[in-house]
């Protein structure tokens, strides 16, 4: 259940940015979660509610945008959707492919209302 630790970090980042911007109403926090990070979006949203409880982020919505995985083949340069971490190139069957998308874990933006 490492989602709680991640949720606390997200709340920290959102708080810091909100303070810097001089706002106290954060309506939404947009986060990117790569589908290969192992983070479960539902658990992350649930954890965020716990992390934000009794803070000024209590009513903020955590908006999770899942980033689909993409792998690339070093031989035929094909880009394809891997089967999780199984990156077998559909073009030439090589297993020596690299994952180029799907490991993201970023706070992208926060939606704020001027107070």
């Amino acid at each position: 259940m490492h989602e709680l630790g991640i949720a606390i970090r997200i709340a920290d980042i959102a708080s810091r940015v909100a303070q810097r911007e001089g706002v106290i109403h954060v309506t939404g926090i947009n986060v990117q979660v790569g589908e290969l990070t192992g983070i479960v979006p539902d658990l992350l949203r649930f954890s965020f509610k716990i992390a934000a409880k009794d803070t000024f982020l209590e009513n903020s919505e955590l908006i999770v945008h899942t980033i689909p995985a993409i792998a690339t083949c070093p031989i035929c340069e094909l880009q394809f959707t891997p089967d999780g971490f199984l990156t077998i190139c559909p073009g030439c069957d090589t297993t020596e492919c690299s994952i180029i998308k799907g490991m993201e874990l970023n706070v992208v933006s926060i939606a704020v209302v001027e107070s």
Partner: protein
Amino acid sequence: MCDTCGCNEIGGSGSSVGRPLHFIPTPEKDEQEHRHHYQHCHPHEQLKDQREVMVTENVLKHNNLVAQENKRFFNDRNILALNIMGSPGSGKTTFIIQTIEALIDKQKVYVIEGDQFGSLDTERIDKTDAKVIQVNTGNGCHLDAMSVMTAVKELNPANNSLVIIENVGNLVCPALFDLGEHQRVVIFSVTEGDDKPIKYAPMFHEASICIINKTDLLQLVPFDHLTAINNLRKVNHHLRIISLSALQGSGMTEWIAYLKKSMNSLQS
């Protein structure tokens, strides 16, 4: 794909697995297709006076920055740092004790023991000549860079030494957290089954070395060694795989030779 919200018409569902992507959007295309982030992603209307503040910060940035500091600390002192991960009961502590015993005559070894509760593993390692410190994570399921930094400061490891970090027994969560180590070692034992690399792929994908442990039990369990290696290769083709029995000692020579070579290359 939109870099702001990740919306992507081309992928995500299981049905597209293995299919080539014929269309990888360019940033310019994103701009044209995707200006009104809130309106298309979310049903609620944009509130008056609402604005969006761009952040673009990795959630693990703080952990990763501290991990970099840890790594700098290790590098400045020519210390090789290992992050040992694996399921509870995969044999991590036995493997660490055997590693200490093989090296301790010529090499100072320090151990950071990560466990949710108690100090049983620390007590076992304390019987060797390695200096050990316990980190209890409580309800936490992994070590992070900050807890390792605190432990390292207290351990104060000597120059040219080996620091072994035994992560919390867990094949899932520790994979996400960089501790500043040089090598990530994942241990899985033959009693766990040859399918584990596929079922817990992130851990094996992020590791640099895989130890297949408890090979002395190979005759007793339905574990196919070749299948295990093929599964590991499917998930991570860079992985160095060493099969051994930490309890019986067979195969440890290859691991110790590899470790000595790693330390020499760090210190040269």
